[in-house]
């Protein structure tokens, strides 16, 4: 009970115990004295005298009753609150600056936490899980893995706990009368056990569900789907759910908050590998060693490093290559830490988040410099108070602590505000990232204790930056000289002025860096948007037509597609239209195949592959892809005609070395095809890619039930969409048309990372510039205020207004110039970190540097206007007489 009361007394020193005790004491003694014969008044006086200094006794008792540290802190805090209340302008500015700085940091930390560090809620042992892709000798990128290879790896590895195969897929679920595209995943049967996520209802997959051709139509559904579609019905297990046109038995419900293992998406259902054909338009791949489709993870045994596992698995792949040269020549395997997973959005987000982090740290520094400046101004305003407190014996440590308490109070308030900002910005990334294929991306920030701890660390660090240094400076007062000279002209201000100038220089420098970054990214963004994808983007609309889900096989789908394309071509305003199996610039992976070319001998241990698209005869004219040699496909290139192909320019250059390929042959998988034409190279994933070998085969010689439909028309998609839906429904009411968008839109969706980076740098670059201008203004205003006497003297000695103007302006601009020079130098060294986000822009682009410096100079000039005006208005007579 003792320490509790003591603790309470430390914070609320309102304990009246002593007063009552002392009163009783004095009265008792008075009574004693009266009994001994003194008069009541005399006795009372004598008793009080005997008691001695009442207040001292009370204070010493209170000291015994409280913890000194806490009561001091309370006193400091009370003092700090009073000081801030007395300077609401200062408090507001400081808290605002810090809130912006800390809030931006907390938001970016939360993104990094949610997307890179803890991307998969509920998944256990994430530190032992690594992403796996295939590799191909002679090429830089990553490939998928085949299921037979995957099983062989699993059988041969001693270091890996679990091989977790996964392939993103999707389906259309109807909710009421609205069809919704949802992402899902094909996962190996061990998936849920390996990642430690246990269905809250029903069961996970069983080993036998790994095997067979559509033999186990079972699914585990997400909590969200269970809630939205089945209203949390506890008897949902055992019911059937249509997935891609086939009824699946629901065997389990995943726990709440589990979204799967693919950054950016919230998966709604999972199916076992035996259902793979159903989700790959009927193509059975489980026994095909050449079919690469798995993006997987390995969970290593405890204590095994990534390098050890990499070595072991590479050895297994080398053995498989020797055993199956036909399919595995040149095939390898590569492990990645989760945060660098190449096949989901994590890999794409790393540079963006890196830049975001750099930018917000710079903003925090600028904010701290600003607050530091404000604190310094105020600290020297309080110089006299400090001097007096020191001279009457206050410890210097005590003064520093007092100022630190004020600083901490400011940053604590700002941290709370910053967390509110971070909460708002949590989903900012998803907001800036457009939906892909109609599926909204899930890129949440996570505001957990780790983010909180880091933010607090930032807060304390900031406090030390902006409060501790000024506190040390101002408390180091030479008492003797300070008291001798008159107030306000102690040695401090000169040192402070110097420090404040340094702070402004730092701010200006950082602003220049951010502005240069913003400028480069804007330029690059413009270059990207102006880049030619190689096909028409205006006046071309694109959508998908999925007949497979409605139960069509490839043969029936062909009939349906023929009827549909005839109807579409007759819609008013449609100039041309045709199908392809993949649309450029979608996330859907581009098909690739092993090839051989007449007369081309590949390096001994390599097996050439090329990506391809399966297209209708009017595909090239609809998308405006020029045929530079030979011819396009015709309706005659069908299943009964000789197999043909069209190659693109980069394939022609790589495999035919300058001779015209038309007329020669290329082997695709096992068919030899005659090359009938050469098409202009186009970009197929994003605007920044370099051309890689690409070819086309006719849709009729390689039929597919799921196709994209491209329509060349001046009509806007909204107008065309309804007509198109009507045509499709009149052919088959079960086929739902996909989202109809322009090619332009399709292309722009791939520039999300650049757009995020540009948005962020413009936003924060502008903010930084504003803060720096405020800082410069503050310093200039203070400089003018402090040098009134000097200015007055100059005026009295005959300096005119223009001289004064030049004198003040030069000081301000000198600071800005030094800052700009340092900033430009820093930017010169660091802009290459923007890496792949810069497209066709030199990271040391001279005009951008000039522009950034110019903008900063204008801001600096603007910041000097008011102080200069005040300086010119100095009245020498009044000042010198005072």
């Amino acid at each position, binding site marked *: 009970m003792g320490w509790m009361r003591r603790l309470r007394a430390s914070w609320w020193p309102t304990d009246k115990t002593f007063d009552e005790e002392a009163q009783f004491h004095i009265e*008792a003694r008075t009574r004693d004295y009266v009994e001994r014969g003194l008069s009541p008044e005399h006795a009372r006086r004598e008793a009080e005298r005997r008691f001695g200094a009442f207040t001292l006794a009370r204070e010493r008792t209170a000291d*015994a009753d409280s913890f000194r540290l806490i009561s001091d802190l309370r006193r400091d805090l009370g003092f700090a609150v009073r000081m801030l209340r007395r300077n609401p302008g200062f408090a507001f500015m400081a808290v605002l600056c810090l809130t912006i700085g800390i809030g931006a940091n907390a938001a970016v930390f939360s993104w990094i936490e949610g997307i890179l560090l803890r991307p998969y809620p509920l998944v256990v042992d994430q530190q032992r899980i690594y992403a796996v892709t295939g590799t191909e000798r002679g090429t830089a990128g990553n490939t998928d893995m085949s299921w037979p290879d995957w099983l062989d790896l699993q059988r041969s590895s001693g270091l890996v706990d679990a091989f977790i195969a996964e392939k993103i897929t999707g389906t259309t679920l109807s909710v009421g009368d609205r069809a919704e595209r949802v992402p899902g995943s094909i996962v190996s049967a061990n998936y849920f056990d390996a990642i430690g996520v246990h269905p809250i209802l029903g069961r996970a997959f069983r080993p036998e569900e790994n095997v067979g051709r559509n033999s186990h139509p079972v699914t585990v559904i997400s909590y969200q789907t269970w809630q939205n579609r089945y209203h949390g019905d506890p008897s949902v297990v055992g019911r059937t759910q249509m997935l891609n046109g086939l009824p699946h038995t629901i065997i389990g419900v995943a726990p709440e908050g589990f979204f799967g293992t693919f950054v950016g998406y919230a998966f709604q259902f999972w199916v076992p590998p035996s259902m793979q054909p159903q989700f790959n338009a009927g193509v059975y791949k489980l026994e095909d060693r050449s079919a690469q489709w798995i993006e997987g993870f390995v969970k290593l045994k405890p204590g095994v490093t990534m390098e050890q596992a990499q070595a072991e698995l590479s050895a297994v792949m080398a053995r498989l290559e020797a055993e199956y040269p036909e399919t595995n020549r040149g095939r390898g395997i590569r492990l990645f830490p989760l945060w660098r997973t190449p096949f989901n959005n994590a890999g794409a987000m790393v540079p963006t988040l890196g830049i975001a982090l750099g930018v917000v740290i710079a903003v925090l520094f600028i904010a701290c410099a600003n607050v530091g400046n404000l604190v310094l101004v105020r600290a020297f305003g309080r110089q006299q108070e400090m001097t007096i407190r020191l001279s009457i014996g206050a410890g210097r440590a005590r003064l520093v602590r007092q100022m630190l308490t004020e600083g901490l109070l400011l940053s604590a308030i700002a941290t709370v505000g910053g967390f509110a900002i971070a909460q708002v910005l949590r989903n900012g990334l998803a907001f800036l990232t457009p939906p892909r294929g109609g599926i909204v991306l899930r890129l949440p920030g996570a505001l957990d204790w780790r983010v909180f701890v880091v933010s607090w660390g930032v807060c304390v660090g900031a406090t030390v930056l902006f409060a501790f240094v000024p506190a040390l400076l101002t408390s180091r007062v030479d008492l003797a000289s300070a008291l001798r000279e008159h107030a306000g002209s102690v040695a401090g201000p000169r040192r402070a002025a110097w420090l404040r100038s340094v702070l402004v220089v730092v701010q200006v420098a950082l602003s220049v860096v951010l502005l240069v970054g913003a400028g480069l990214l804007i330029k690059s963004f413009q270059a990207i948007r102006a880049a030619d994808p190689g096909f028409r983007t205006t006046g071309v609309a694109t959508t998908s037509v999925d007949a497979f889900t409605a139960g069509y096989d490839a043969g029936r789908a062909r009939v349906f597609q023929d009827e549909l394309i005839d109807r579409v071509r007759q819609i008013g305003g449609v100039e041309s239209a045709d199908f392809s199996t993949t649309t450029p610039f979608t996330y859907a992976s581009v098909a690739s195949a092993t090839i051989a070319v007449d007369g081309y001998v590949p390096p001994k241990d390599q097996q050439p592959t090329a990506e391809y698209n399966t297209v209708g005869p009017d595909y090239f004219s609809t998308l405006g892809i020029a045929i530079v040699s030979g011819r396009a496909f015709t309706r005659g290139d069908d299943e009964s005609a000789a197999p043909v192909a069209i190659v693109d320019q980069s394939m022609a250059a790589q495999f035919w070395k300058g001779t015209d390929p038309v007329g020669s042959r290329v082997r695709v998988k096992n068919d030899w095809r005659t090359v009938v034409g050469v098409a202009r190279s186009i970009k197929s994933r994003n605007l920044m890619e370099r051309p890689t070998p690409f070819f086309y085969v006719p849709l009729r010689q390689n039929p597919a039930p799921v196709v994209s439909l491209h329509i060349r028309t001046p009509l806007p998609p909204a107008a065309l969409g309804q007509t198109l839906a009507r045509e499709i429904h009149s052919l088959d009411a079960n086929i739902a048309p996909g989202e109809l968008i322009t090619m332009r839109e399709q292309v722009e969706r791939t520039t999300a990372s650049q757009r995020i980076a540009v948005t962020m740098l413009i936003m924060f670059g502008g903010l930084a510039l504003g803060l720096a201008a405020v800082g410069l203004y503050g310093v200039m205003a203070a400089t003018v205020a402090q040098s009134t006497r000097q200015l007055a003297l100059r005026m009295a000695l005959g300096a005119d207004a223009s001289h004064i103007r030049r004198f003040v302006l030069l000081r301000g601009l000198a600071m800005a110039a030094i800052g700009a020079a340092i900033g430009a130098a820093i930017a010169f060294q660091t802009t290459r970190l923007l890496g792949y986000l810069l497209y066709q822009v030199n990271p040391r682009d001279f005009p951008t540097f000039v522009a950034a410096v110019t903008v900063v100079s204008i801001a600096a000039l603007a910041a000097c206007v008011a102080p200069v005006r005040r300086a010119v208005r100095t009245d020498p007579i009044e000042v010198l007489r005072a």
Partner: protein
Amino acid sequence: MALRRRKPDALQGTLDLLVLKVLSRGSHHGYGIAADIEATSDDILRVEEGSLYPALHRMEHLGWISAEWQLTANNRRARVYRLTRAGDRQLAEQLEKWARLTKGVAKVLRFA
């Protein structure tokens, strides 16, 4: 905490010892303790109130004594202190220390 030195010096220790001793004979309020010390020492020892109450509160927090508001014979509220078991042990310890101290001082005085 270390900002102010508050090591119990000899005098402080003496006051603690006296208070504990007085309380070992029965509970008392603050004035009672002071009056008892003065009376038993024939007014040789006078207790400074400026030291007494801080000492009482400190010993209370240390758990050597406990306090309770009680009504006195003439119906006044008084804070009455009582020795705890820990205080009892403390008293024994301090008595022994005191005995050793006086013995030492006596020896020095005899031979110096």
